């Protein structure tokens, strides 16, 4: 059974993804931050990591870079709602191509929130097949 790690600071989002993936028959672990995700990676090696991009403390881009260097075999699906979080500083208002950055850093798939269930499943399945 394929094992998937979901990292998102929004618990609701993480659990929704978990629900969909578990329904499709995957083994899913959800963490609400990069630190917890990395902690989990010390104990287990998932086939696919689904990670949000905009997160407090350590953001998704840093996480992807770490994954690429330490776990080159893990497939990465980056997700982002885009936009400019209100809490962000004014200079962050300028367009951030989060997902483009994620792809550049090594993510195999990118998805814009809110995505359809089928889009998520096909992205994950595509990576598992390759």
């Amino acid at each position, binding site marked *: 059974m394929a094992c998937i790690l979901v990292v998102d600071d929004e618990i609701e989002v993480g659990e929704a993804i978990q629900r969909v993936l578990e329904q499709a028959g995957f083994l899913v672990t959800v963490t609400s931050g990069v630190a917890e995700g990395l902690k989990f990676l010390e104990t287990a090696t998932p086939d696919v990591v689904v990670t949000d991009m905009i997160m407090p403390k350590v953001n998704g881009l840093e996480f992807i870079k770490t994954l690429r260097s330490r776990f080159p075999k893990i497939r990465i699906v980056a997700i982002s709602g885009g936009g400019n979080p209100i809490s962000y500083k004014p200079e962050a208002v300028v*367009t951030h*191509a989060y997902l483009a950055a994620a792809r550049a850093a090594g993510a195999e798939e990118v998805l814009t929130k809110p995505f359809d269930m089928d889009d998520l499943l096909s992205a994950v399945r595509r990576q598992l097949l390759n």
Partner: protein
Amino acid sequence: MGRLINTLRARMIAVVLATHAALVPLLYLGVSTIVQEGYIELFVNPIRSYSRLVADELENASAADFDHHAAELLDSVLLSGQVQFAQIVDGPRTLQGTVATAPFPDNRSDDFRFGDQGDSVYLISHTVKRPGGSVVLRLGFDEGPTLQRVQTAKRRVLAAMLIFTAVSIAVSIWLSAMISRPMRRLREAAQRIARGDVQARIQVHSSISEVQELNHHLEHMRHELVGSNERLMTEMGERAASEAKRLDLERRLLHRERIATIGTLAGGVAHEFNNIMTPILLYSQAALREQTADSRLARDLTRIVAAAQRARNLVQGILTFSREMDAKRAEVFSVRPTIEEALDLLRAIVPANIDISFQAAGWRELRVFGDPSLLHQVVINLCTNSYQAMRPNAGRLWLTLGSVEEAPDGSAANEAGYVLLEVSDTGHGMEPQVLEHIFDPFFTTRDVGEGTGLGLSVVHGIVTSMGGTIAVDSTVGVGTRVRICLPAAQQAVSRGVVDGMHSGG
């Protein structure tokens, strides 16, 4: 009164009168004295000679029968008509002629002064030596005719003086008129200039060189005035234009700031919103999968999914507005095929009574940098607005594509110039107060449910993200024209053939 005396004419007359009042009496006195002296000379000289002649004759008369001779002499003198009376005084006795004469004034002494003593007699006495003593011959001559002549001459002199004065006054009036007429014309010209009528030439004809000079100087002044007036007008025009430009820039800046603020807010809301929408969509779809297709729950969940998808599209619109462009999709692309593609799609949905045409000018391939699908979206949104503005009537919707050297708002020059896309329609047009808000997100004039109010704000967001500008002109009842100016991308290759005008019909 003061004004009257101050006029040139009155002054000149006053001067002439004053001069004459002082000089004419003196002149009269002088001239009349000379005339009188002359006449007296003419009168006195012959009578002196005559009386001397008579005295000589008396002296030569024989001593014997002296009285008889004396009487004869006196008679002859009296009869000559020159003498009024004559007598010889010989001691105590007085000899007189036999001819009747006017009574001799006894008490009078010799009168050698003309017109003296209140009568008109000139009296001459001669002492004639005789052998037995001396006798005195006294003759009285009539001064009357000479006096009359003198009076006549004096009257003539006076008349001449008065004529001279009158002529002087007339000349002074004429002279003052000669000076004051051109002066009045010049004054009128100056008044015209003062009223602001500076166009008419000042041309006062006068033989007086001072007046000509004054005319020349006034004309020169007028000329200068016309020049400075024109400079002033030009300057005022320029100032007004620059003020209008400044106001326009200020307005645009304000507008841009407002859009940017809304964009920031929209971007923030969109982020939160996307995070909220994700579980809604995923849970609904996951739950839907566990239901049989025709169950009540499945139908409800389908509704939820559809609504969530609509919400997602709305947020995508907001994000586009707040310039969330997917950078990886930006590329240099040719504008014309993109527009034609969008128009093909539009022709399928636009009613047949609306005529759509497209014209691309110039032979160069016009290319810009950005996401072609976004420009596609721009065309779709603008044309949708246009045809909805024309409903239900027939109308015309036309697009033109061309290139310009400079952006219309004068923003930083782009080396490759700008691509200008115009979308015009014959729709209802918009009021200025509506025009001001058309780029605001969620601003719509349509009925609820017909539009999201994001169409133009999305267009604005896309155009701005591509570094371009958008301007809308609209006249109520006539139509609307949207001008989009995008910085052109450097031309990789010129196709080198004349593409000519292309009409997409």
